């Protein structure tokens, strides 16, 4: 007789998936409709059917170094056609959340971000931190007649807080990515490959959003993700230009030049794009809610952070231009708190998908598993 396989279910993992938006997990009866209707799965090692049974059985080790859950773009074609309402798309989202938790350290921050009950603390920490730093000079709302956000939050202070915060977020994310990469290599028994070529092919795939285009029931996910993604790129460019003007050219913000200049153009297009993108993301969730549900806490935490950044960013600008100081400064403070949250929680929130999904897509090319 063949050697017996001992299955060691990790019940905490199952619980984590169920609590993380995968509460329909146990309804799956392994018919594999999901795998067939999925347009983004590879044909060998197809998902999400096998992930459903692994998660039901608590086979946590199967997910370590497994790129497949990250190839899922949550189109939810599987969920729409699932005969049992097991919502594979949502379950895979919850499994990804578990993976993010597993790979990102320190674990108390990972636990903080993933715990619904601690949502107040999630925002209280950056608010207190920022409040403390900004109130060092004693005046919280500046008295000057002209509204200048640099009165309230000096550029240097901003840079001293946000640059380390972003660096921290990126570092933790990259460390997680490297652990994940090593696990993927170990699990697949792959030792070498064309890393440079894989990275450039991955960048092409991500930048073109080509996978989103094959989504069936939620084809408009392409538009919303495309808008949010490129709006962030625009806003990133605007920020970089701001740094250039302030630190290199020693100008003072708000910049006194018109709306036709690059920094303003990128900023405005980014803001409008983000507004449209976030609006689409939210409305799409409600459009498919009957079959899919509106998503998990983890989904909404990121939507909330991005949404508040967008709304407070636009509102603080409008208030500044309108000259309503009290509101402008308050909204700007909220804006800063949420941007800080985005940076600090980058590797722990759903935004960490930028590390793990990119790595998974890249690994598929690197390992030669992806058919040419």
């Amino acid at each position, binding site marked *: 007789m063949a050697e017996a396989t001992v299955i060691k279910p990790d019940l905490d993992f199952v619980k984590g998936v169920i609590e993380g938006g995968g509460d329909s997990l146990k309804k799956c*009866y*392994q*018919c*594999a*409709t999901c*795998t*067939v*209707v999925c347009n983004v*799965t590879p*044909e*060998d*090692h*197809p998902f999400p*059917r*096998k992930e459903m049974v692994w998660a039901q059985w608590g086979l946590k080790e199967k997910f370590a170094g497994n790129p497949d859950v990250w190839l899922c773009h949550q189109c939810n074609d599987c969920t729409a*056609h699932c*005969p*049992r*309402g097991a919502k594979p798309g949502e379950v895979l989202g919850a499994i990804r959340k578990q993976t993010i938790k597993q790979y990102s350290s320190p674990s108390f921050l990972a636990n903080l971000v993933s715990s619904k009950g601690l949502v107040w603390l999630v925002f209280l920490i950056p608010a207190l931190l920022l409040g403390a730093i900004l109130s060092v000079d004693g005046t919280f709302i500046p008295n000057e007649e002209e509204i200048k956000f640099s009165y309230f939050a000096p550029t240097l202070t901003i840079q001293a807080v946000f640059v380390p915060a972003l660096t921290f977020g990126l570092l933790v994310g990259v460390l997680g990515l490297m652990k994940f990469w090593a696990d993927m290599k170990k699990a697949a028994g792959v030792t070498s490959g064309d890393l440079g070529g894989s990275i450039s092919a991955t960048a092409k795939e991500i930048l073109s959003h080509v996978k989103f285009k094959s989504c069936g029931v939620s084809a408009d996910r392409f538009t919303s993700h495309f808008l949010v993604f490129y709006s962030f790129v625009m806003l990133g460019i605007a920020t970089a230009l701001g740094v250039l003007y302030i630190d290199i050219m020693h100008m003072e913000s708000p910049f006194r030049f018109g709306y036709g200049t690059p920094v303003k153009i990128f900023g405005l297009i980014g803001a409008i794009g983000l507004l449209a993108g976030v609006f689409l993301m939210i409305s799409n969730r409600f459009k498919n809610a009957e079959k899919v549900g509106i998503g998990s806490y983890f989904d909404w935490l990121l939507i909330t952070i991005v949404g508040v950044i967008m709304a407070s960013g636009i509102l603080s600008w409008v208030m500044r231009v309108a000259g309503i100081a009290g509101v402008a400064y308050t909204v700007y403070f909220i804006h800063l708190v949420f941007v800080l949250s985005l940076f600090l929680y980058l590797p722990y929130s759903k935004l960490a998908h930028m590390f793990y999904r990119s790595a998974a897509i890249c690994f598929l090319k690197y390992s030669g598993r992806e058919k040419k």
Partner: protein
Amino acid sequence: MSEQQKTVLVVGGGFSGLTAAVETAEAGFNVVIIEKTPFLGGRVTQLNKYFPKLCPPNCGLEINFKRIKNSGDISFYTLAEVEKISGQEGNYDVTIKQNPRFVNDKCVGCNACNEACPVEMPNEFNFGLDKTKAAYITHNQAFPFKYVLDSKNCKGKSCAKCVEACKYDAINLDMKPEAVNLKVGAIVFATGWDLYDVTKLDLLGGGKIKNVITNMQMERLASPNGPTSGKILRPSDNKEVNNIAFVQCAGSRDENHLPYCSYICCMASLKQATYLREQYPDSKVQIFYIDIRTPGRYEQFYWKVKEDPNVTLTKGKVAKVEEDPATGDVLLTVEDVLLGKKITAKFDMVVLAAGMVPSTRTSKIPTDISYTNDGFVVPASLKKGMFAVGTLKSPVDVSRSVQDATGVAIKSIQSVRRSI
């Protein structure tokens, strides 16, 4: 007790209804059967072979027809429907609508009207696999063996070619729908089931791809009195079928379609696999399933079919069906769950193992009854003296319907006696 009070009305002349009728009548009670279609026998008449004995429909049906003919206590109306029910146990007033057959008792079944009839229409008895005339009989074992003119398609007096052709003066184009009032003591509902509408299964190509047929169409293809005289040929080009696939749970066990197991489809596909294997010795059969469900002793039949090396059972539900336009072949995509790979395979013909839908899902009984979300009768909601049989309550096979109908016969007898 009056004769009327002693009468049991059986609505539906399929296997369940016939069983309830003969069992009741042979215990000394009057029975009236009303049947919506022009012939008795129901779904079983459309099968090639049926479980558990795998004999053709006339074994079983023939004896019941004989019992009806021999019994002085059973009368029946075909082309009839219940319009109104009032009263209570022991004293129901039922109005039925008798639709015209346009053919009277003088018909000898000579087929002259059929030959003369110029109107062609899809053959419903064969699930649209071929055409029939507007003057027709479903098959050579039909009971009553009397032709019928299809009221929707027949052009009536403007044509009347059949009237000229009939030597027996058996056709009467003046027949009109009639209301018939019955007084009965108890009512048995045995209106059976319909096949799930496979055009709703958009992933499976039902009704769109020529060589994707339903399990009931497969019965007709294999039946000696079917459109191909029992030779299994695929619809697009009448090619012999050497490579067939069965798609299990076509609608069943699916909250988007039928959220229940239709009980017999796995057995039907296993049975139909043997039709093909017996007809073409080199043929190959592949059955794609979620779980093979073989209620009770049917398990042994499953083992037997499984032993055939040309029958492959693959775990994985088909969720993509495409047509190869050049050849008419059918491509199925499925995850072979045990292999863990997504595969696409090509077949001459594909059978959708479509599920069972209670007739009450679409046509409700004209009295106060509760139904489940899927249209099944909730038995507890039936008034005293009313009974539902077989597939009206849950998907079941013929033998369980028969057992149920026999049980209901005694229930209706008790009901009638109670109200004396």
